[in-house]
């Protein structure tokens, strides 16, 4: 499938953490042609299995890409001069500095379009007049009367940001929820890559829920699926305004393969080997402690799971103009596919044995 179309389908579907049913349906339709089974688990994660060709019981590789996005939730319905407005709270790590004057959709009894609004700074209390707008200042304006709002919206309704995916120069695109639909797209590319290529291992592709709030789907799907190994796919910082140090990576420069305590050294190496086999340009991203991704949850399910982490460089994270290069999305998909093709029956034994071999010095 055309990568722009794929990303467009994925990013323009609303799925704040905790309300992933709709995106799960979209992904189900995308993955159905490529996998042997699909199901939704107890917390809403989508589990797709593509069987390998080795005799059963086969080792299983779990790919985790979260399908939820940051959003808002209605906290209060308030009236002013007969009109209805909504006070909200955040769902996940919303960057509150930039949500003023964004377009939103309120998922009430029906979907309602609205905008994020506030009184101007000079009408706010003095101590707040030079600060970014806070949730106590912001309201959603639906342009409707209180009666119309009350008929359609209640406390606890989800709100998503609304911004179509747009083409920038070259193969760059910009929109909302590329964190982490870019990775869901990469897993889709991976499943496509595996069509007609032989692989021994089962692939368990999981679109996880509630990553932005608590890595919920990673913990629970890894527990339930008991994979032999796992890879989390998430976005990472792209080099750009204000992000130019070693923790940021060129858009279009290839995916990152991450290293650090959340990653098994054997998985890091296997991903590097796959990149070498494809002659793909990749970068190493370091996480000295917490990786802030599903890898954190996957790694410590049950007795522990050898876990790898792949990143897609993305600018302006957690805004409505997140930007990626589509080449990186495609490369990430091929990298995962190549990793899977190369996995053999001895893989786990080999990386485990390496844990007890002295380093050459």
């Amino acid at each position, binding site marked *: 499938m055309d990568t722009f179309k794929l990303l467009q389908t994925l990013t323009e579907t609303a799925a704040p*953490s*905790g*309300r992933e*049913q709709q995106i799960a349906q979209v992904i189900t339709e995308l993955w159905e042609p490529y996998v042997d089974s699909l199901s939704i*688990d*107890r*917390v*809403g*994660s989508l589990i797709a299995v593509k069987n390998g060709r080795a005799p059963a019981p086969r080792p299983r590789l779990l790919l985790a890409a979260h399908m939820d996005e940051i959003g808002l*939730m*209605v*906290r*209060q*319905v308030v009236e002013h001069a007969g009109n209805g407005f909504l*006070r909200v*709270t955040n*769902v996940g790590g919303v960057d509150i500095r930039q949500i003023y004057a964004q377009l939103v959709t309120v998922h009430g009894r029906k979907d309602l379009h609205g905008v994020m609004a506030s009184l101007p700074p000079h009408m706010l209390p003095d101590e707040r007049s030079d600060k970014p707008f806070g949730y*106590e200042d912001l309201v959603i304006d639906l342009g409707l009367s209180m009666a119309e709002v009350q008929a359609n919206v*209640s*406390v*606890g309704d989800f709100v998503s940001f609304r911004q179509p995916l747009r083409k920038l120069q070259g193969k760059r695109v910009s929109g909302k929820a590329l964190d982490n639909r870019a990775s869901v797209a990469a897993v889709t590319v991976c499943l496509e890559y595996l069509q007609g290529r032989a692989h021994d291992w089962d692939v368990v592709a999981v679109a996880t829920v*509630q990553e932005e*709030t*608590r890595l*919920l*789907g990673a*913990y*629970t*799907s890894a*527990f*339930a699926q008991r994979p032999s190994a796992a890879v989390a796919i998430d976005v990472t910082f792209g080099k750009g305004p204000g992000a130019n140090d070693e923790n940021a990576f060129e858009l279009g420069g290839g995916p990152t393969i991450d290293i650090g305590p959340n990653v098994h050294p054997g998985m890091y190496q296997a991903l590097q080997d796959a990149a070498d086999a494809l002659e793909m340009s990749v970068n190493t991203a370091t996480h000295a402690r917490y990786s802030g991704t599903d890898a954190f949850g996957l790694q410590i399910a049950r007795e522990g799971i050898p876990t790898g982490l792949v990143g897609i460089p993305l600018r302006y994270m957690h805004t409505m103009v997140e930007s990626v290069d589509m080449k990186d999305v495609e490369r990430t998909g091929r990298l995962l596919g190549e990793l899977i093709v190369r996995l053999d029956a001895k893989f786990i034994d080999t990386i485990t044995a390496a844990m007890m071999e002295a380093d050459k010095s």
Partner: protein
Amino acid sequence: MNELIKKLVEAYGPSGFEDGMRDLIRPEIEAYADEISVDALGNLIAVKKGSGGGLKVMIAAHMDEIGVMVTHITQDGFLRFTNIGGVLPHNLMGSRVQFANGVIGVISSDRLEDRSKIHPLTKFFIDVGASSPDDCPVGVGDAAGFIRPFLAQGKRLTAKAMDDRIGCVVAIETLKRLKTTPHDVYFAFTVQEEVGVRGAMTAANHLDPDVGIALDVTLTGDVPEARPMAISLGQGAAIKVKDSGMIAHAGLVRLMKQRAEAAQISYQLEVLDGGSTDARSMQIANGGTAAGCISIPCRYVHSQSETVDADDVESCIKLLVEILANPINL
């Protein structure tokens, strides 16, 4: 029911030290449960077997309360202490606490230069009447709970530890009133909620329920200059949609609303900005649990005058009975 509430709220049971609470609750439920057990961390679990065709449902109400623990005894016999759970320093002056051995202490503070500030716990001490470490009747590591008599004034019920003994009362009353259910229902009276929802975690790991419902208090927005929040005392059971630790299972929220509407039980929808409940633990246990929470609206949470409304308590019990007595389709 006020008699049961009084008995539970006045009892001693800081997190980690809930043995006495178990002894109080067990006789209340023995006649109504098919089985009762205590797990490794001390959760008390009462099972009501279903008539068949239902799900495995875990109900969690925590027995523990916030408290304090001695960290140091000064040369003059005063006790420095740390918090067990979310103790608020500005509620402490003049409070009384009781240790497991019955010793009572009063809380005061060092001389405070700036009274406009809220001072950290390290500025406070407990006086148990000792004059040195040698004649001090308690030691480093001993835990104490707050003491305050239960007050019932009209519909308003005030006490320390209403969080979450009132949830325990809702669970006990539900167990008593629930004649038949298709579900296997596990009423877990949990430990160590106030220190990080720990008891519910191991109970849920062990029980592996399909559905988990916590019973706990929530904040209200109906007092002067409160943080805006669409929850008021007396307006009914609160069905949690989100708090700062979890987002409730959407299907379970929908079901709770439907049951409340069908049985004409008053309810409110809750979006809480601070705090979380045992539902947070149940949700992420094992392969995941469809988790939600029925909250009892409560003013002045984590003070010694936590206040709830008797009608809300009744609504919570009725709602839980309705949910459990009927099929659960998520």
